[in-house]
């Protein structure tokens, strides 16, 4: 469904753009319907840049991103609008996605004009409620409320509901649960699991390996813009081949298994991209 072929992204930095900074280097991957692909990497690994390129929020320097065998970069006007009816993104911070002046459900209402013109009020209302119920929100509890009256988990689920209103086929979920509490986190993950069962393809971008593992069919490990390892999730997590994947897995704090404290050295952070 979605295919990335040798996609790169570089930025010009420094005075007069004299230096080139490569954020993503020749990344290839694909997402099939009903598949969850986890894109895992530390900060600065380029994982969010990939998500943003897929959503056309930033341009691609080289390589192609295609959706159903059509080049995404070429979409314009109406074709772009229908692309967004198929592909939507949800991001890390649910609090900054809402305008505090307006009621929270405005993010849902705003879709009505461009995507459902002429739908009568009653059918629209039914559709709204169905999508809220799909993310296990009680419409009576969240409609007509201001963002500050809702919890982070509720706001985040409402953004997923917004994506579902459009009957999307691919969701780009960029760190969508890292801001949530442990007790609500798992609810959003389970929700994604249910949506996957209904055929939704999900690109799950995260820095947290345990979260990536819970849901995904395929895992892609990124390091400094490059794919260092990818494959079926149970293999990548079970028998990691690349030393970087192994060191990442060893650093994840887990209950019932303490860190190996023999290696006491503090690693020097890899060169920071300016």
């Amino acid at each position: 469904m979605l295919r990335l072929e040798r996609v790169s992204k570089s930025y010009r930095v420094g005075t007069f753009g004299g230096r080139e900074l490569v954020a993503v280097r020749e990344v290839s991957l694909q997402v099939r319907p009903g598949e969850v692909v986890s894109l895992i990497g530390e900060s600065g690994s380029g994982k969010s840049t990939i998500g943003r390129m897929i959503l056309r929020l930033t341009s691609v320097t080289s390589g192609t991103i295609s959706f159903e065998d059509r080049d995404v970069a070429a979409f314009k006007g109406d074709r772009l609008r229908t692309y967004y009816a198929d592909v939507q993104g949800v991001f890390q911070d649910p609090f900054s996605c809402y305008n505090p002046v307006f009621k929270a459900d405005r993010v849902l209402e705003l879709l009505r004009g461009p995507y459902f013109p002429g739908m009568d009020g009653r059918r629209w209302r039914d559709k709204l409620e169905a999508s809220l119920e799909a993310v296990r929100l009680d419409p009576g509890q969240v409609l007509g409320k201001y963002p500050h009256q809702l919890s982070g988990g509720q706001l985040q689920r409402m953004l997923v509901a917004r994506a579902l209103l459009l009957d999307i086929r691919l969701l780009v979920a960029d760190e969508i649960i890292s801001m949530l509490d442990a007790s609500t986190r798992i609810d959003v993950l389970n929700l994604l699991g249910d949506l996957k069962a209904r055929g939704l393809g999900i690109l799950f971008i995260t820095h947290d390996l345990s979260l990536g593992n819970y849901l995904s069919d395929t895992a892609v490990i990124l390091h400094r813009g490059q794919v260092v390892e990818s494959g079926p999730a149970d293999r990548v997590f079970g028998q990691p081949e690349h030393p970087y994947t192994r060191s990442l897995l060893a650093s994840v704090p887990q209950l019932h298994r303490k860190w190996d404290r023999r290696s006491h050295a503090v690693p020097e952070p890899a060169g920071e991209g300016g």
Partner: protein
Amino acid sequence: MSTVTLKVDNLKVWYRTLRGDVQALDGVSFGVGDGEVVGLAGESGCGKSTLGKSLIRLDGRMRHVGGTVELDGKELPIADSGRMSGFRFKEVSIIPQYAMSALNPTRRIGRMVAELLESRGVRADGVHQELLRRLELVGLDPEVLDRYPIELSGGMKQRMVMVLSTLLNPSLLIADEITSALDVSTQKAVAEALVDFRDRHYVKSTIFITHDLSLVYQIADSIIVMYAGKLAEKAPTDALVSSPRHPYTRMLISALPEVGVRFGTRRLRGIPGSPPSLLDPPTGCRFRDRCPLAFEKCAEQPPFLEVAPDHFAACWKAF
């Protein structure tokens, strides 16, 4: 634990708001032993940061309503910011959540450290050797002292603040969510450096505040779990994780996805509902509405009692 560094007794700290008092910390009692790393875990809004802050500095909206705090046998005047100032940095120190904003952006780091020390009446060249030794210990090059904070990465800044906060060997160090903005490998390094500082007696005792139970499990000697402004459970780390007594702790642990658990094979469950408002907290056990074990008795606030050696819980079902 033979000697106790910190003793908190029935501490109440409320926030003043236009709509009334938010009872963020409502009668909290516990002790921290000499050389102990205590993990303080809980969800956002449970009062864990309020607890950390009230041990060092109450901000303008916070009001000390009752209870006492004793450090090394002396009572901390937490309500009196002026008198607390004599304790800060020397006896009690904090590593704040955002190290990025803890460093003065307009000063080179070395100069900022010197200014800070002099404000406390300590001569900077007297501790310079010690400063260099500790920088080396956390893997920072001494040349960071000539740099501006903006030139350091997040992990480097966090380690810099850590060295700075502990430079005068405080009795109590409060580490407030110091790793939540870091990558897993840097997170591990920072957390282990914290334990290392304790082992080298740079700090006597540490309170490590986090929302991440699996991280605190790695480094703490004992763990306190907070819920809605009260302590839910306190126990030695292994006891808390392997045999939790409070239903909240149990549900929190079972909601954690670990490497190896897959959605397809085992479905984890969250905790339904949300914590009560602390503006007007309900009577009785505050977890009652979300608790599957709740019964009539829960309408009465359970005391925080010892249910096993060193293992405390506030639940009628645990006694």
